[in-house]
């Protein structure tokens, strides 16, 4: 019985961890390419959730069907945000950068509240609902689909970065901006690409979450701190690091909640975060 519960908890930790990983991959990409911490990252996720909610509520289109559309919209939004605002603070002091993305965070929350009211909403009876029994573990279908979806999106990002010329250019900009520029890579194009992909990843995570998580304007707050933790554990700028760290954080959070009570699950993750920051600032998987 206890083993069952442990296994069950482990599985749900991995599944939610995959979502954390997806959110964090977008964040780490933006940071890796241009050294800016995006406090508004959770709000990209929120926009992704609302996009799938409205497409479902108004046109009865299932979130899984509209996923590509939402991802495209978020990509465009990320690029637009870069071109309108972020481009002006590339060389600004860190304080201005922090407060710009922080301002965007509050702005997007405010706009969401203005347009869609602060109510909690949810998507009922989407194509994926109910649960399945796998190897003796009861798993919610939405969570399972979300986990698989997160793996697929992460895989696509990984393929893009490692197997395409554009991805290589992005990686080159992340590792050495000046050298990449001298090789003829347009840094502005790479920066806007990073913001586009970053927003798209968070948006995808939002869509995957939307089938089993309440949708409301401040929902991003639940994810941003965890995403910071994941990005740190995985090493700033590392996509594969963020992937594994996301799973780890999901498992630790859920296991900690089981052992110490759910009210302390965030505390456990934060303590781990501080410990890693102090003793391995390059991240668990980063190189010294």
């Amino acid at each position: 019985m206890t083993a069952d519960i442990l296994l069950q908890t482990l599985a749900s930790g991995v599944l939610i961890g995959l979502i954390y990983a997806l959110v964090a991959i977008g964040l780490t990409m933006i940071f890796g390419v241009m050294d800016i911490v995006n406090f508004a990252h959770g709000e990209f996720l929120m926009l992704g959730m609302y996009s799938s909610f409205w497409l479902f509520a108004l046109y009865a289109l299932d979130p899984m069907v509209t996923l590509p559309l939402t991802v495209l919209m978020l990509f465009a939004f990320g690029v637009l945000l870069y071109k309108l605002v972020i481009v002006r603070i590339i060389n600004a002091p860190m304080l201005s950068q922090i407060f710009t993305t922080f301002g965007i965070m509050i702005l997007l929350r405010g706009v969401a509240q203005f347009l869609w009211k602060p109510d909690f909403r949810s998507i009922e009876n989407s194509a994926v609902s109910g649960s399945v029994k796998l190897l003796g573990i009861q798993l919610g279908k939405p969570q399972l689909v979300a986990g698989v979806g997160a793996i697929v999106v992460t895989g696509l990002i990984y393929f893009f970065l490692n197997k395409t010329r554009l991805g290589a250019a992005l990686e080159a900009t992340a590792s050495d901006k000046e050298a990449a520029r001298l090789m003829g890579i347009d840094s502005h194009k790479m920066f806007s690409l990073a913001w586009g992909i970053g927003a798209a990843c968070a948006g995808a995570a939002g869509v995957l979450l939307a089938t089993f998580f309440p949708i409301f304007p401040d929902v991003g707050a639940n994810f941003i701190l965890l995403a910071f933790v994941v990005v740190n554990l995985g090493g700033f700028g590392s996509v594969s690091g963020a992937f594994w760290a996301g799973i780890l954080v999901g498992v630790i959070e859920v296991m900690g909640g089981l052992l110490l009570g759910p009210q302390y699950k965030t505390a456990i993750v934060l303590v781990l975060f501080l410990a890693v920051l102090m003793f391995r600032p390059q991240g668990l998987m980063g190189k010294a």
Partner: protein
Amino acid sequence: MKNYAFAVAALLVALAVPALTDASHLNMAILVLMAAQVGVAWNIVGGYAGQVSLGHAAFYGLGAYVSTLLLVKFGVNPWLGVLGGGLIAALLSLAFGWSCFRLKGHYFAMATIAVAELVQIFFTEWDYGGAAVGLYVPMDKQGWLWMNFATKPPYYWLALGLLLLTLAANWWIERSYLGYYFRAIKDEPDAARSVGINIARYKQIALSVSAFFTAIGGSLYAQKELYIDPNSVLSTALSIKMALVAILGGVGTLFGPVVGAAVLTSIEEFTRIFFGGTGRGTDVIIYAGLIIVIAVFYPTGIIGWLRSFRERRAARADASRQTAAHAEAQAAATTVTAVSHAAAAPSVKGEAA
């Protein structure tokens, strides 16, 4: 000199405020003073020493909780409680500094958020400390002895006094060797280390002094509002606001946070009054839009903007003087003109920048 005349004028206005306003406006003035005070306190470590803390609500909340718990559970006089809260916050700042100061830049900022979140979780779960329900400050003993009043004006004087005290501390720090060390740590950490400044120690001093004054601000908040809970005195939003006040006015300047608090609090209150009634977050949108505009276009804050404005005017005056000289030169010898023109142009540009 002009700055001091301005400060004296501002002080005179501040002294006259309670006589000139009604209760609701006076309350807003108190909010401005309290926001200014924590902004000034934040500025010691965030501005002068350049260590951007986004977790100062931990100190604020600690001050509020310590003085209130001492009063509620042990009947300790709030004046002592305030001091106790400040000292305990300064003590906590040692752990805060120990865990965060080995980090730089973004890492430091994020670690401070995490520490403050942990403190918030602790107070949300701690039953003895009221947990999520919070604590009420009893009103059975009132008057100056118990720092508890039925009317607003005494709180105004308390807030003003505390602000002046915090400003005085900053003024002293700015002029003492501490101020030079802090600025050296901020601008040239490697050079500071190479001339033998113990960086870790002076960062810690900045943080502890800042924590002490921030906590006193928190205690005053508890005495004024008569109710505290983790959300009102320990939230990350509050930490951010403390930094924002300083940034808006001008980081690392003595009066920057005061200017920033006046502007930010007014904006907050007016947008709330004019747009907040809709319950749709219009006030939040305006507030956020302003933050973005300031962060993107005026990174040096209002004081920095005024200074650059003054410098631009001085540069223009310089330029017109040079044009006059240029005209004279032209009258003397036309051949020299081209040279003087070419020489004058870049120097004017340099001053404008």
